[in-house]
Structure formats: C-alpha cells, structure tokens
C-alpha cells in the first residue's frame, strides 16, 4: 500500500497487550505501519491492539499490529519506541482512505479567512521563540497560523475566557498551577471541553500520565520535533471547521486572600455558567484585571495587603473602572454597607448569606437569567 507524502503528523496511540495498556503518541504513520514513542516494549513479533486517533484529523481507528522493531533513544528527535506493522489488510485499507482524506482536504478547503489560532501555555521564552520561528518556516502563507502565549495557568484561563482558540498546547511544568490541572479545568468547562489539547513536557512518563489522565488528547516529549508538530498544525489548519460563534459568558474576577474561599466561589460561579478568574494578592489581581477584562469584580474586604473597599475606591477613582464591583465579607452588614457606599462599590454581599445568594446577586447585576 502506498504511503502518503504528508508524513509525520502526530497521532495519539493507545497500545494494549493483554492487561497492559499504554497511551502515548506516534508518527511516521502510513497505511501499513506507525512508530509509537514508548518506554514499554516486548519482543519483536509480539501482537498488540492499537487505537490511533487525533481530534479533527483522524477518527479513532482500531488495528492489530506486530512489533517490527524496537528503537532505543538516540539523538534529540529520535525517542525510544516501537515500530509497528499492521496485521489486517482491511484496517490498512481503511487507514489509507483516512490518510488520503487528510492529504486531499488541504486542496478542498477554501483558503482560510482567519488564522488557525493556537494558545501556547509555556513559561519558557525559548520555546515561544522557537514557535515563532517554526511558524515562519513551516507555514508558507503569512498569517495562516497565529500563536498566542500565556505564561501560566491563570493567564491562559483569562485568554481562553475572552478568545477562541482552535488548539491549546500546554506545558506540564508551569508556575503555581501545573499543566495537568489547567487541562482538567479546560475539560470541565462546557465551552472549552472539546478544544484539542496537546501537552508537552520534559517530564517523561509521569508528565505524560498526568496530562493524559487530565484529558490531553496527545502528549509530546520535549525536546519537541518541530517538523512533526508543525506538520500536525498545518494539517489541522487545513482541516479546521469554520469557527462557530461562541456563546457569550459573563466574566467575573474574584479577589480574596483565602484560597479556600477562592476555590469555593469559583466552583459555584462556574457551575452557574460564568467564566471566572481568581486572584489572591494585589499583583495577581491587577494582572488578571487587565488580561481578563471582567464584567464584574468581587472583592473581599479584610485582606493582609489591602482593604477591599480601598481597592474598589481606587478602581473607580483612579482607573476609571465602570463594571460592577461587589464587596464580599463576613463583616457586620451595617459596616459593610457603609464601606461599600464610601468606596462607590455597586453593593455588598455578606459571606454569611452563602453561595446561593452570591450567585443570585451576580446574576442580578449581570442581568443573567438563572
């Protein structure tokens, strides 16, 4: 069977042998063979069950295959793994159809009206520069691929709330919140759950298991082989569906020094359909306020760094913030009311009123139906 020229796009590879199963990735896919990156190995000739897929490129296809060769890790870009040859002619024919579809779709697609948008979440400036270089090198048409960056999970979340991305690439090792946690949040969000996610890391097996368990479609080891990754991006860009309108979700920024209060408030507001960003200190709050551009701000009153009413007052008077601001506190109601008025806040919520009341007030202020 003929191989297809558009080789080395990355696929998710799920290997099963008896009770063992491994989820990894593969490349060099043809209608008769594939190379799967894995530390797992068995003797040459061992029969394995294999499921290959990649969202928006290759629908899951199950094949039986034999290990044809075993490779130990070599130079960068030559990871350890197994070369597999497919057993069944019928599966090969099916794969050939799929690959030809991949091959031909580029020409069939209308020229892109907007770039294929990727959010790269990685705190390494070197990786960012390499993506910029790869974009220029691998994409012939200027503007066909647009890569946006986020340094950490919170910045990524803020960008995801405000923009639509066709693909998210997440490094596992991120400051404060790791990539697996961010991926789990993405998968838990109704609007973002179907976005293809590629996890990347130097962390090897542990990072792969953590990110795949969290919901990544594919994990790719660093150092990245840019030829494979950009081939995959190019195929994705050519195959992408026209962007569907994104239902508008109101964005709420919550500022509280208690991590527990932040987690609980975020969970309650997200389950009510809001997009939520959180901040536990002033610098994070200011960064989030600018990046997230919230429709509503909730501020705790008594915090070690600042009083919430002073924060609200500064936002109104100094920054000209016009969106509603609510003070949230366990202070006495009369005291809270006085502080809210003085700070020109839109109102206040006693923490003692509970989460249901907090959600109700947010809906009321943002005119969102329950």
């Amino acid at each position, binding site marked *: 069977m003929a191989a297809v020229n558009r080789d080395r796009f990355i696929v998710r590879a799920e290997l099963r042998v008896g009770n063992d199963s491994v989820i990894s990735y593969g490349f060099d896919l043809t209608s008769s063979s594939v190379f799967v990156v894995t530390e797992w190995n068995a003797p040459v000739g061992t029969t394995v069950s294999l499921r290959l897929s990649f969202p928006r490129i290759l629908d899951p296809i199950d094949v039986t295959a034999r290990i044809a060769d075993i490779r130990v890790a070599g130079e960068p870009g030559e990871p350890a793994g197994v070369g597999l040859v497919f057993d069944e002619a019928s599966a090969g024919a099916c794969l050939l159809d799929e690959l030809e579809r991949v091959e031909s779709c580029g020409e069939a697609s209308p020229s892109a009206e907007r770039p294929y948008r990727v959010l790269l979440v990685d705190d390494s400036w070197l990786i960012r520069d390499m993506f910029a270089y790869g974009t220029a090198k691998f994409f012939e048409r200027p503007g066909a691929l647009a890569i946006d960056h986020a340094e950490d999970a919170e910045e990524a979340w803020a960008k995801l709330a405000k923009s639509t991305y066709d693909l998210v690439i997440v490094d596992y090792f991120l400051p404060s919140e790791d990539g697996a946690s961010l991926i789990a949040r993405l998968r838990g969000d109704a609007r973002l759950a179907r976005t293809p996610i590629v996890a990347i890391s130097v962390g090897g097996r542990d990072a792969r298991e953590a990110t795949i368990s969290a919901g990544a479609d594919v994990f790719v080891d660093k150092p990245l082989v840019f030829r494979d990754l950009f081939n995959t991006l190019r195929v994705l860009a050519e195959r992408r569906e026209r962007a569907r309108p994104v239902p508008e979700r109101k964005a709420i920024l919550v500022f509280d*020094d*208690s991590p*527990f*209060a932040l*987690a*609980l*408030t975020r*969970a*309650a507001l997200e*389950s009510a359909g809001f997009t939520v960003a959180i901040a536990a200190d002033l610098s994070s709050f200011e960064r989030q306020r600018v990046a997230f551009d919230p429709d509503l701000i909730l501020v*705790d009153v*008594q915090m*070690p760094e600042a009083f919430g009413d002073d924060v609200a007052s500064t936002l109104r008077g100094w920054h000209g913030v016009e969106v509603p601001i609510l003070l949230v*506190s*366990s202070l006495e109601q009369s005291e809270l009311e006085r502080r809210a008025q003085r700070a020109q806040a839109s109102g206040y919520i*006693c*923490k*003692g*009123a*509970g*989460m*249901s009341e*907090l*959600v109700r007030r947010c809906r009321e202020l943002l005119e969102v139906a329950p």
Partner: protein
Amino acid sequence: MEDLHAKFLPQFVVLARKRLALALTAAIARDHSATSKVVRELHTLAGEAGLLGLHEVVPLARECEHKAKALHASHSDADADLLVGGLRQLEGVIERIGATAPKAGNS
C-alpha cells in the same frame, strides 16, 4: 450547591481545625505577639463558614474574633480565658460537623 457543599466541607473542617489549633495555642500560652494573626484567622474562618452556609459556626467565629481583638488591646488573663472558652465552644461545633462530613480527599 449541595454538591459543592459536600465537596468543600471536608476541606473546610481541616482548615478550621488548623486555625483553631493556632488560636488555642496562642491564647493558652498568652502569646500576645500572635494575637493579630489569630484575629485574621478567625475572621477568615467566619467568612469561609459563611460561604458554605454553616450558620452555626459563623456567629461563634465572629464572637471569638471580637474576643481576640479585646485580648489584643488588653493583654489580660481574663480576656485570654474568655477567648479560650469561646474557642473550645467553636471547636466542639467544628468537631461535630467534622464527624458527619466525608473524609477530606474523598470528594
């Protein structure tokens, strides 16, 4: 909201026990340098309990917060004893809640 309550209650109990242990240790030892931290911890405890709708906890935590503030101003043994008494009462309520809550990490 019931799901959230079940999910976050065990975590609340763990945190509340830590805050109370800190407050009790400081009050019993008459460690007045720690009193302002105790006030903050009790204030936070009250807020977290309020968000979870634990109406039995909130007034007790607020009362302890006021007692800690009084102790911060007076440094007196009498105010320290009053605070210890309030904290013991709050501790009993937290333990009662903890006995019925699912174990932390199981949620």
